């Protein structure tokens, strides 16, 4: 048997077009006669629009049209995650503001011109008469009486109030009877997703066929079509959405924004192709942000370290309107993860969604789970310190014991499989934990401040059973589908509804098919991104593409294999049950020399000259797959840092990650996902933060001000794995797209606090920039 393609780190099949500049991202597509659209955006966080003078812009060179909110005939932009039992206020979100703007970046007018320079010039000529109103940017402050109100039907700016609880009585009792309770107020700072490709849309209207084609930077073209149909009123069978090459998303290209609907509307109105491409500054104002919580959290335990309860009150900023999935992020994807990797009998999360005069928030890599993991891991470290226990020992004491087929946690979820202790031990061995503790003591004697942070995490991904989606108010399904088509000569096209945009499924999915069918990878093509030639699917996010779409692919491929087996049996004049299959060849058991290849079987099935009775011609299979449960990858991350007390600078010295996503289809791609995730999570711990001033001006409005992680800030990460298959997935795999981000923020944060232990510092607000760390040291030493 040849080396198995499954599990092999083959080179990516996406790369030749990407390393030569031949890839086509949305803005790279030029249609003859394309007009360029600029969206004029509000410079005020909150203001009444008294009037808009477009006359100068309309007569500027090259301008074809100028539109304001009064001209636009589109439906409001809907929210698609209507969490139940929460009194959710689905406030109207017009595609262009009509009378009131509610954040800096809210769209007020469209300028469409022959080229982008002319459109930008004319946009400068639009005169909007604003009457500024008081603004509020902090989600906790916004709920207080007297705070500026964003929406008439959302008193105190409260968008929803959601509770998940294992039983309030038990939770109360756990805290009342605890030997020790540790609390923290955590500010999960606002982050800018910053996919390297800004968003863009190109729309083409065919007035004769009444067909609309929209190329858009999307993680989920089928959802985009669904929602764009709602906003534009166009019927779905005449609405084609194409996500061409997409340059990263991290959640920010899940939502359907006003912008692509406006682009489509303008193309229809003007009967010419219209393109809109945001600038980076515009991206920072008008593309969703992530996180932005103020949390009050606490943990209850016995003196021996047994955790008995955890609870939190979360003020989660929604921004000015509800983005597509926003209400689900600080609730379902957050509160249900409070158990982490631990046995915690009593759990409660109350989450208050709050409108603020800021850019709407939504899913950003990890989406609710990084916030949950951060607070759990923060509280574990703080509790360990309070109990004078080693933080690793405290974790070990509370870890859920190994399980292979389902473990229900108190908050109600059933984790699929896990062996948390094994991953922890492996990571501890890699870093040399006990040696480090000695080294730390010696270093402190020399005036050097080393610290270590350990995170044992479990996370929920592979979203998810559709029945659950319905129960939690998600306005869609969460299944995936595929069509696998084998051509007469044995080449494979697999059409998938999910929409990879950097994750490499054109490679890993080809590996899955190749592994199942014995057809070489180079003969397999994965087709995705175009609603006209792919079957329905709900998209690429929540680390669900491989767990869900991958499962559909496995099952469809097995249908192909069984049909080919029947065809081969017919050709070999043998009974189907006597046919073995290996390396792409069917043969009668015991006679491997007399065989029919899968290509032979496919050709004969396609020619259909002599089919077995009852067999349909062709070699094609389709499969819908709705997973029975989520998947729960897990692992341990450990960081060692050194803090310079003179400058407050944090140097990351080592970073070890042991992750378990079940069997790995392509370990090189898995590692890449983890590397990127780690850096994104550390970005939150040490560097990144979107800052608004009290008037709602985004101070970090360009890449000059927003601290994106750079290559020189990181050591080489040390990675390893354990392999615990998911019991319910056909090939046992779990998602790996978000684990790095989920684990690395608390790991590095806790390492810094550990380093600062001699100063008695227990908390510093993220990001842990040198001024903040230095300031904390000064404060602790009784300075300014």
């Amino acid at each position: 048997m040849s080396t198995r393609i499954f599990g092999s780190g083959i080179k990516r099949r996406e790369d030749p077009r990407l390393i030569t500049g031949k890839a086509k991202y949305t803005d790279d597509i030029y249609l003859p006669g394309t007009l360029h659209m600029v969206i004029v955006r509000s410079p005020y966080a909150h203001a009444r629009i008294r009037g808009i003078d477009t006359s100068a812009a309309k007569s500027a060179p090259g301008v074809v049209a100028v539109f304001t909110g009064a001209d636009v005939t589109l439906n409001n932009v809907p929210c698609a995650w209507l969490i139940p039992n929460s009194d959710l206020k689905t406030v109207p979100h017009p595609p262009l503001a009509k009378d009131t703007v509610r954040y800096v970046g809210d769209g007020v007018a469209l300028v469409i011109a022959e080229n982008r320079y002319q459109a930008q010039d004319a946009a400068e000529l639009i005169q909007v008469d604003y009457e500024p109103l008081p603004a509020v940017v902090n989600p906790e402050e916004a709920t207080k009486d007297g705070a500026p109100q964003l929406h008439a039907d959302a008193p105190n700016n409260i968008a929803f109030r959601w509770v998940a609880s294992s039983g309030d009585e038990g939770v109360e009792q756990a805290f009342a009877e605890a030997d020790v309770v540790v609390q923290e107020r955590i500010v999960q700072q606002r982050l800018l997703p910053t996919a390297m490709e800004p968003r863009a849309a190109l729309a083409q209207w065919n007035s004769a066929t009444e067909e609309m084609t929209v190329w858009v930077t999307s993680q989920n073209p089928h959802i985009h079509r669904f929602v764009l149909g709602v906003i534009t009123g166009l019927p779905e069978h005449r609405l084609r959405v194409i996500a061409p090459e997409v340059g990263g998303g991290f959640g920010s290209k899940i939502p359907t924004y006003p912008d692509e609907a406006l682009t489509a509307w303008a193309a229809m109105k003007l009967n010419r192709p219209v393109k809109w491409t945001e600038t980076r500054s515009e991206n920072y104002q008008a593309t969703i942000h992530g996180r932005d919580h103020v949390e009050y959290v606490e943990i209850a335990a016995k003196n021996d370290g047994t955790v008995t309860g955890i609870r939190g009150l979360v003020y989660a900023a929604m921004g000015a309107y509800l983005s597509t999935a926003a209400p689900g992020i600080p609730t379902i994807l957050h509160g249900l993860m409070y158990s982490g990797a631990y046995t915690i009998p009593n759990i409660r999360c109350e989450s208050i969604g709050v409108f603020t005069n800021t850019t709407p928030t939504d899913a950003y890599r990890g989406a609710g789970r990084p916030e949950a993991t951060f607070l759990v891991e923060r509280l574990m470290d703080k509790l360990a310190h309070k109990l004078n226990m080693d933080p690793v020992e405290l974790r070990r004491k509370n870890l859920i014991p190994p399980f292979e087929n389902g473990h229900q946690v108190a908050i109600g979820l059933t984790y699929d499989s896990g062996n948390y202790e094994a991953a922890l031990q492996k990571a501890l061995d890699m870093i040399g934990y006990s040696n480090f503790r000695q080294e730390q003591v010696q270093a402190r004697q020399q005036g050097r401040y080393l610290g270590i942070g350990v995170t044992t995490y479990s996370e929920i991904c592979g979203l998810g059973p559709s029945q659950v989606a319905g129960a939690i108010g998600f306005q869609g399904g969460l299944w995936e589908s595929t069509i696998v088509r084998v051509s007469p000569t044995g080449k494979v096209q697999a059409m998938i509804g999910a929409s990879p945009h950097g994750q490499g499924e054109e490679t890993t999915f080809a590996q899955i098919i190749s592994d199942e069918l014995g057809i070489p990878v180079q003969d397999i093509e994965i087709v995705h991104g175009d609603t006209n030639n792919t079957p329905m699917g709900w998209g690429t996010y929540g680390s669900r593409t491989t767990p869900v779409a991958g499962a559909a692919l496995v099952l469809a491929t097995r249908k192909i294999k069984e049909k080919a087996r029947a065809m081969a049996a017919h050709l070999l004049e043998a009974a189907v049950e006597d046919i073995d299959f290996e390396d792409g060849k069917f043969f009668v058991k015991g006679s491997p020399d007399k065989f029919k290849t899968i290509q032979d079987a496919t050709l004969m099935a396609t020619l259909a000259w002599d089919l077995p009775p009852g067999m349909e011609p062709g070699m094609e299979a389709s499969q819908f797959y709705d997973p029975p449960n989520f998947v729960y990858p897990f692992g341990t991350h450990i960081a060692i840092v050194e803090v310079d007390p003179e400058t407050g600078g944090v140097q990351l010295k080592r970073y070890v990650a042991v992750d378990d996503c079940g069997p790995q289809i392509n370990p090189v791609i898995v590692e890449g996902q983890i590397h990127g995730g780690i850096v994104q999570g550390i970005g939150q711990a040490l560097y990144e933060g979107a800052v608004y001033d009290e008037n709602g001006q985004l101070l970090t409005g360009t890449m000059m001000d927003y601290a994106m992680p750079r290559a020189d800030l990181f050591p080489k990460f040390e990675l390893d794995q354990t392999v615990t298959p998911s019991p319910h997935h056909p090939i046992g795999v779990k998602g790996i797209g978000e684990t790095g981000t989920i684990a690395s923020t608390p790991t590095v944060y806790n390492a810094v606090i550990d380093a600062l232990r001699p100063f008695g510092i227990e908390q510093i607000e993220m990001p842990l920039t040198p001024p903040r760390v230095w300031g904390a040291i000064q404060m602790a030493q009784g300075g300014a």
Partner: protein
Amino acid sequence: MKVSITVNGTVYERDVEPRMLLVHFLREELGLTGTNIGCDTSQCGACTVHLDGRSIKSCTCLAVQADGREVTTIEGLATNGQLHPMQEAFWEKHGLQCGYCTPGMIMASVALVKNNPNPTEEEIRHGLEGNLCRCTGYQNIVLAVKTAAEKM
């Protein structure tokens, strides 16, 4: 203004607005869309090309400044259908995911190795400070540059 710019070995003569950025000239006048735009403040490096052999950010250069000079873009890096060793190494070492920063990253890396044929890991990381990637965490990019440097 009339300009004559050699791009990937071909001379192009065009009449452009004085304010036109080189990156827009490449993308919109010549259709060379391999050079990407990732920011508007010269931070991200996605638009990195070579001007007379030196790496520059083409969003921070006017087309007229390139008049009479030679530009190499990602489309011009491979020769006679053979990938440049840097392109090979990015592919081999999984130095890219979504690919958007990649053309600029590769062009910057080629210039880096040209100036420093045997860079250490630290020198590579320092040298690529001006090129941002949100996907890879940089580790495999550094590995790719190191690998390519050994072959160049």
